[in-house]
């Protein structure tokens, strides 16, 4: 209520008129009707309605709808949020059941480690019928690198169908698979190709309308967010501003439409005095944008996934593999898995790479405090 009218997102001419009429703080506009404001400030009725909508969003029309949410209510709400399985049980556990709808996650990794594979897997798995514990939604795939090859989508979709058929055999859910065929899976993945950052920004402006027309969309991926923003920019502050604006819009869409949003990011080498570390690209401030960050990396011949940032799950690392059918758990004897994990943990290089960026994040938080 103490906010100054001058700081509102309004046209300067209107702001000048409001301040001229004595409406200096937001509190001054409280319980003023649009008609009164029109006369007081000498603006049109349309303008005054707009002003009030900006100052008191929603509450202005629907009365006292804005209220506090209690933590328990949010917990209930989150329980009803479904998550999209990756088909790798270990990875699902790390993520808290899979990729959550309504949330954003960043997936980082070196080329060829499986970022695109995971995105394709999720785009297919989003469509698993509710009777099989799926989300039964549609997917949007925004490709900036040209790595979305439909041949691979077909492989993964066929394997997912096979998987559900086997479950179907066990539990005998009749008819559940009727609408779950290769054709429907493919026709429910909406593909956009953006060649540069301008096209990507434009696409994000158009997404609200698209999602309004396609309310069943539950998964949206930008593969990758890094590619269009890693060249063409002389001035890095412009890049930071655009990236943050983009992420903000996507975060908003995620919660408004209950969509799981995945952004993939490249890795880059940061040189420090005598050693070099593998860190996610796009700079330090980008690390704060996404509430969750999953890093995929190689350890010898084994792929590992590691949740390095999350406000809800504890940090953990698990092995996974990609077969011709898609994402899977590592089929090793338990002892071998634990052995490979412990060897991975003891390997200082990798752990350092993760720890280091983590530690620096903490440092920055302290700086802010």
């Amino acid at each position: 209520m103490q906010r100054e009218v001058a700081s509102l997102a309004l046209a300067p001419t209107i702001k000048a008129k409001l301040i001229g009429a004595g409406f200096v703080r937001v509190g001054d506009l409280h319980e003023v009707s649009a008609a009164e404001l029109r006369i007081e400030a000498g603006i049109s009725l349309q303008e005054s309605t707009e002003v009030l909508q900006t100052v008191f969003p929603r509450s202005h029309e629907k009365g006292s709808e804005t209220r506090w949410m209690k933590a328990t209510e949010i917990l209930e709400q989150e329980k009803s949020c479904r998550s999209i399985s990756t088909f790798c049980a270990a990875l699902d556990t790390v993520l808290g059941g899979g990729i959550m709808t309504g949330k954003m996650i960043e997936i980082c990794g070196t080329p060829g480690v499986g970022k695109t594979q995971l995105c394709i897997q999720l785009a297919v798995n989003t469509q698993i019928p509710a009777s099989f514990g799926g989300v039964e939604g549609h997917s949007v795939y925004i490709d900036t690198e040209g790595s979305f090859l439909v041949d691979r989508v077909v492989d993964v979709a066929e394997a997912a169908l096979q998987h559900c058929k086997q479950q179907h055999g066990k539990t005998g859910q009749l008819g559940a698979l009727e609408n779950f065929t290769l054709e429907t899976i493919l026709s429910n993945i909406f593909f956009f190709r953006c060649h540069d950052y301008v096209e990507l920004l434009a696409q994000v402006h158009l997404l609200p309308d698209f999602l309004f027309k396609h309310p069943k969309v539950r998964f949206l991926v930008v593969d990758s967010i890094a590619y269009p923003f890693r060249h063409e920019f002389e001035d890095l502050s412009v890049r930071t501003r655009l990236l943050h604006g983009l992420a903000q819009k996507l975060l908003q869409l995620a919660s408004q439409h209950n969509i799981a949003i995945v952004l993939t990011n490249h890795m880059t080498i940061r040189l420090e005095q005598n050693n070099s570390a593998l860190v996610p690209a796009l700079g330090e401030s980008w690390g704060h944008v996404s509430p969750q960050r999953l890093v995929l990396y190689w350890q010898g011949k084994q792929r590992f996934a590691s949740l390095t940032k999350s406000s809800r799950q504890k940090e953990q690392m698990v092995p996974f593999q990609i077969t011709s059918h898609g994402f899977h758990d590592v089929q090793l004897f338990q002892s071998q898995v634990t052995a490979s994990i412990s060897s991975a943990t003891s390997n200082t290089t990798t752990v350092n790479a993760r720890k280091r960026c983590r530690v620096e994040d903490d440092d920055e938080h302290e700086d802010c405090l």
Partner: protein
Amino acid sequence: MDWDHLELKPSVLLAVKRAKIQSTKEILSLSGLELQTLLKLSQDDVLHLQKIVAASIRKTPAITALQLHQGECPSFDQTTKLSLGCPILDKFLRGGLPLVGIAELAGESSAGKTQICMQLCLSVQYPQKYGGLGAGAVYICTEDAFPAKRLQQLISLQHRLRPEVPVDVMRSIAFGNNIYIEHAGDLESLNMCVSKRIPILMSRGLVRLVVLDSVAALFRCEFEAKDAIVKAKHLKTLGATLHNLSSSFKTPIVCVNQVTAAVDESRLMEGSFGILEKKVLPALGLTWSSQVLIRLMVSRTHLSVQDRFPQLTNHLWHLGNILRTMEVIFAPHIAQSFCFYTIAMDGVRGIQANNAEQASTLNT
């Protein structure tokens, strides 16, 4: 920029013109609040402007994966591939090279990289029915002189390599005249070539393949270790230019890369060595790897074809003697795997091996 063709409200149109905004890019690069101040417009009007501008840039509606799969969108043709000129290698790569994207061919010297590239330059000239794209190729040399003699030999023996192509079809193609050779001795001439000269050839429909042999040579000699950041920037720009060429003309780009021994421990995490576990990594580091769609690694083994495949002795007339391997290090649509091949007088051929034979190689 002509704003009149956009369906903007008259008041918004006037504001945009008054603010002297030059391009749609400028509008999208500004935040909503900045636009409101700059154009003196209300929030709703700015939203309207952003949407109209965005729609003018994104004209194509959403495509479903099903449409892609059925080849219904000519602008995203994923069903056509460029053949390598050998059915076994094509099968190994699921039909050949995709039309859009950078394919990298890495390997030690004398592994057969240039041979494969030359065969691609010939294969692209066949009609689509025979795996080609019915157009020529640009071959950019940065290391050696172009092996013109060897090319002539390959051309004269095409009938042996491709017996399935009718003689009259083969005779109608002037193979030698459709390969445009460029020598780029430094980065500047390379940039000139890819940003000016090649687009001209492509827009005339003369060329549907670009080979860059090799991308590593220029970058490895022109930059010292301390110039890593400048080098990375140049690599990104080159990558972006090649990507643009590739997607606007539906043209595969093949880049030859050298390899480097992986001695530095930190480099071990950069990627996988693939299932054959050669202790070498493609040169140029992560920045370049991020630009590559398909990474293939070729190498020669110490074995001869007879040692490994005695049953093929009858066919030796068309096989070379040294057994070589081609490996997929990463590709969005192919699992890590490898395939044997040989180089003979008439060209490059894959060898069909069964699983047991492949496995025995892994163990040795």
